């Protein structure tokens, strides 16, 4: 019928086929009856097509397979004759085993020693350089490998054949079934299958350590050397024995034809790597499918082993991609996780327990960073499972959890993220440190315990607890860190070493993010614990002492800081070799603290000693040297305030060597600003001030005093340059930081206030702001004044009075005076010799503010206290003066 069919008729058939096809089968007949009245030919045609559709050959699939087969036959036919050669080199050829793109594989016989070999021969038509290269690459790859799980190479050579030389190599002949056939025909149980995969992973690991990545692992490339074949072999089997009692046949990996051989001296030719897909889609990792053939590493093989494992357990591929076009396959593999094993539980081997599920999932993770990083790790986990030990893959890694955490908390305050990252990084570092320590003492069990305890703590205790469902979406930095500290004791009651490690780390982080008080509290708990568990002179303990000293410095608890630094120094000298990192750090801290106390001579002595020690190994201590030099410059500079040259040089060196965002660089540049500001070098200063705040923001947590210093010094540069808008912005930011800090920072805050006043007094048209900042300043000082420190109060009151007297401000904030009045007995207790003077001053201030009742009362109190006064005459005149103010 087809030969003389018209287009119209064909279109009618197609149209009706579409309509029928969309219906359930039982309704199709009715439709055809209805539509084909008097048109039996149409009806027959459509019915035939509907039947044909159901029986259509699987080769008629829309997957591009047709053209592939064309290309394959074409290229096979181009290879010329296929008659078996009798001999190839010294080998008698018995049979053709197979043929691939590169050449043929023959079963051949070697006479001495007498054995069967598989002979791989580059095909005769091959003239291309790249093919030769590839062939010799496979030979080199195999030559490197020697493992019971990899078919061994015996010999490589060349044969003459009509003017050309054809390379070949002889390798171990493996006669068994392939992996999946074997597992099926032997009805292997679960442990046996897992052991097989472990053996494969072990062999692949061997290849990886030799710099060979297979890139095309799949069951058909893995043949089973059955027991009777390994008669040549040996006691190998016993090595593979496990407690499950399985010591079965050995899988052998074949075909390293597309392997990547990592050779430093050889770069792969562009032709073989020009973005072409290498491998077999079903077993290819997402990164391979993404076309990143250059970036493919050992973890692609881990993925392939994962696919093999999945297939051996469930009888199916993780993703059904065999009949799909590549583009779809790539999309599926790259965008979707495989169906979890529990959903494929209807297999003879299932249901699978959670450990197996996690091992499989970890091997098949799309993001290779989260995959087992080596085949050995996968192998170990499988064997651990077989020995009923806990598997390491049981939990996703910390980084994975962290990224999940970050994703859960999109609106997360950056501070919290910074703090968490710092904490995690620190914990990981100290775990590693601790692990090394333990290894030295051959206490592997302790190492394992610590790292798993820390991991559990991070993942369960911290990241899980900070989940939004428990804490809401806005997780604040302090919440996270408080959470981190909570319950440490209970959690690690029997593991003081873990508790100490975590606490010290936590203290470190708290200090880094500017939570100095909280940090001190943690150090106070951590250090005694460390001294008990690790020892007084243990480097970890000393390091914690130094951090505590630096934290105390930030808290302006300078004597305590100096004392702790001294203690750390003594301990390093007692227990560590001269010139250790810790000794240098202790001297440096001592120098810094002494500078802050204004004790420049001992500061310089410590710093010069530190410098000498650091310069014994200048390469190792590059950062320390610059930091120390910067401190020395500060210590020197206090006398020659105008000299900004030396500190400028150091700042330059720090920026170049350590980078502009390094804390030492920032600190030094900030100090340089002070010098430049004092010298009035506005242009130079503004150039630095334009960049420094951004650096500080990248390096220091929000609220950190170092940010405050940088803002303030930069603001000062702008003020001197007459750029008041910039100055105002930065000065306000500095004020924000210092006004939130502890009372110990009062002096800093006063400097800020002074700066604000200076800016507004020079800035035309900002009289109102000047006045309000003057009042602010007084209020802040009164509020911050500590009981008993009544000099502050007196000074403040005098300031109020003088401001009022000069008419600079209108005192409207009577609450201030009221609050001072309420604490009058604290500021100037009864019997104190300055009590009379205090009330006299207060009376003046009250009068100026128009607060007459307080004015009267204060005058009376002053009179009553006059008898205790040191200089009654002077105070008496002050009282008279105040009385006349009304």
């Amino acid at each position, binding site marked *: 019928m087809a030969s003389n069919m018209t287009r119209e008729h064909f279109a009618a058939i197609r149209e009706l086929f579409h309509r029928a096809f969309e219906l359930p089968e039982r309704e199709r007949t009715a439709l055809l009856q209805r539509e084909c009245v008097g048109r039996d030919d149409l009806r027959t045609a459509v019915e035939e097509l509907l039947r044909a559709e159901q029986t259509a050959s699987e080769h008629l699939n829309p997957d591009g397979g047709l053209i592939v087969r064309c*290309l394959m036959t074409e*290229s096979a036919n181009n290879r010329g004759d296929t008659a078996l050669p009798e001999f190839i080199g010294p080998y008698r050829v018995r049979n053709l*085993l197979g043929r*691939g793109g590169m050449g043929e594989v023959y079963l051949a016989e070697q006479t001495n020693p007498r054995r069967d070999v598989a002979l791989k021969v580059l095909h005769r038509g091959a003239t291309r350089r790249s093919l030769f290269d590839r062939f010799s690459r496979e030979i080199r790859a195999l030559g490197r490998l020697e493992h019971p799980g990899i078919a061994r190479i015996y010999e490589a050579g060349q044969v003459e054949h009509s003017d050309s030389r054809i390379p070949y190599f002889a390798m171990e002949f493996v006669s068994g079934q392939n992996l999946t056939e074997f597992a099926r025909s032997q009805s292997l149980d679960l442990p046996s299958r897992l052991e097989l995969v472990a053996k494969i992973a072990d062999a692949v690991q061997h290849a990886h350590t030799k710099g060979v990545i297979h890139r095309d692992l799949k069951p058909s490339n893995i043949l089973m050397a059955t027991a009777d074949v390994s008669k040549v072999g040996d006691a190998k089997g016993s090595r593979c024995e496990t407690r499950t009692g399985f010591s079965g046949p050995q899988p052998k990996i074949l075909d390293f034809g597309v392997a990547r051989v990592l050779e430093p001296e050889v770069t792969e030719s562009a032709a073989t790597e020009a973005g072409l897909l290498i491998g077999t889609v079903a077993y290819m990792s997402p990164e391979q499918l993404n076309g990143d053939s250059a970036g493919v590493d050992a973890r692609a093989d881990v993925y392939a082993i994962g696919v093999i494992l999945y297939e051996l357990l469930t009888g199916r591929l993780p993703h059904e991609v065999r009949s799909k076009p590549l583009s779809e396959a790539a999309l599926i593999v790259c965008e979707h996780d495989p169906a979890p094993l529990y959903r494929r539980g209807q297999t003879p081997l299932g249901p699978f327990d959670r450990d197996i599920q996690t091992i499989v999932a970890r091997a098949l993770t799309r993001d290779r960073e989260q995959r087992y990083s080596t085949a050995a790790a996968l192998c170990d986990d499988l064997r651990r499972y077989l020995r009923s030990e806990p598997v390491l893959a049981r939990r996703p890694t910390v980084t994975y959890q962290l990224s999940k955490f970050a994703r859960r908390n999109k609106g997360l305050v950056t501070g919290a993220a910074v703090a968490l990252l710092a904490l995690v990084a620190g914990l990981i570092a100290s775990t590693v440190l601790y692990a090394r320590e333990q290894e030295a003492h051959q206490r592997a069990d302790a190492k394992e315990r610590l790292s798993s305890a820390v991991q559990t703590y991070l993942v369960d205790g911290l990241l899980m607890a900070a989940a939004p469902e428990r804490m809401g979406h806005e997780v604040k930095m302090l919440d996270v860190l408080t959470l981190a500290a909570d319950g440490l004791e209970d959690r690690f009651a029997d593991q003081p070493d873990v508790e100490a490690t975590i606490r010290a780390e936590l203290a470190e982080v708290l200090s880094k993010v500017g939570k100095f008080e909280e940090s001190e509290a943690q150090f106070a708990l951590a250090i005694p614990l460390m001294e008990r568990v690790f020892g007084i002179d243990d480097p970890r303990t000393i390091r914690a002492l130094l951090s505590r000293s630096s934290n105390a410095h930030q808290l302006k608890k300078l004597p305590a800081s100096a004392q702790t630094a001294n203690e750390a120094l003594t301990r390093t000298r007692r227990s560590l070799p001269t010139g250790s990192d810790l000794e240098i750090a202790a001297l440096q801290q001592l120098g810094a603290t002494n500078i802050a106390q204004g004790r420049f001579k001992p500061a310089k002595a410590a710093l010069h000693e530190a410098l000498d020690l650091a310069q014994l190994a200048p390469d190792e201590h590059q950062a320390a040297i610059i930091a120390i030099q910067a401190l020395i410059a500060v210590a020197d500079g206090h006398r020659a305030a105008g000299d900004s040259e030396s500190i400028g040089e150091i700042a330059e060196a720090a920026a170049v060597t350590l980078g502009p965002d390094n804390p030492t660089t920032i600190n030094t540049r900030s100090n340089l600003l002070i010098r430049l500001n004092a010298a009035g070098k506005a242009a130079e200063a503004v150039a630095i001030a334009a960049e420094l705040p951004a650096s500080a923001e990248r390096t220091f947590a929000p609220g950190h005093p170092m940010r405050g210093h940088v803002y303030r010094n930069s603001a000062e540069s702008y003020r001197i340059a007459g750029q008041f808008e910039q100055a105002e912005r930065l000065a306000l930011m500095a004020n924000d930081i210092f006004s939130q800090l502890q009372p110990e920072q009062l002096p800093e805050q006063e400097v800020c206030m002074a700066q604000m006043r200076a800016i507004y007094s020079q800035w035309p048209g900002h009289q109102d702001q000047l006045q309000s900042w003057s009042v602010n300043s007084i209020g802040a000082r009164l509020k911050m004044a500590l009981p008993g420190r009544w000099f502050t109060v007196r000074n403040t009151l005098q300031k109020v009075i003088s401001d009022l007297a000069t008419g600079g401000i209108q005192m409207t904030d009577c609450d201030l005076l009221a609050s001072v009045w309420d604490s009058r007995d604290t500021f100037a207790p009864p019997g104190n010799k300055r009590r009379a003077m205090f009330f006299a001053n207060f009376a003046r201030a009250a009068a100026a503010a128009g607060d007459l009742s307080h004015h009267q009362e204060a005058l009376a109190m002053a009179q009553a206290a006059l008898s205790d006064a040191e200089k009654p005459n002077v105070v008496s005149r002050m009282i008279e003066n105040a009385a006349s103010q009304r």
Partner: protein
Amino acid sequence: MSQPADQDVTQLLERIRSGDDAATSELLGIAYHELRALAGHVWRDQPGDHTLQPTALVNEACMRLLKTNPNGWNDRKHFFRVAARAMRNLLTDHARAKGAQRRGGHDIRVSIDNTQVASLDQGVDLVILNDTLTKLSDLDSRLGQIFELRFLVGLSVTQTAEIIEVSPRTIELDTQFIRAWLQKEMSA
């Protein structure tokens, strides 16, 4: 194979867009040679059962020929149409060679006794397939095009729908129809 200048291909696509049929056949020639060269390169270098999908091949050809603007989807759409036709020509050539072989030469079959190499050319008689396809294209050129894009290049339903500019559902139904029709004609 001479590598056409990037400019040529871009210009050809310009001309195809403005309805110049001669440009289509010129580009077809270029695409055909490029695909053949690439395919030969791939199949000589890769062992036989490694999957290199024709989609990748066409993509690769497209990337190479359209270096100047490899991401312009319009260009790519045109290119895919042409490349699909080139694939079809590859198939035809192949079937012709096969036919000649059947008439005069001898069919070479290799016995393979394990799974290391996939067997070749199974299941479908390419000569008959090619004849059937020619007839299909005559009867309905759109179905011919869909065949090329789906069965030869291996594009997905969605991609094909975008290139042919009909709904994905239509492409799905047409694909089923083509399968049925081929099956019926070829087993006749």
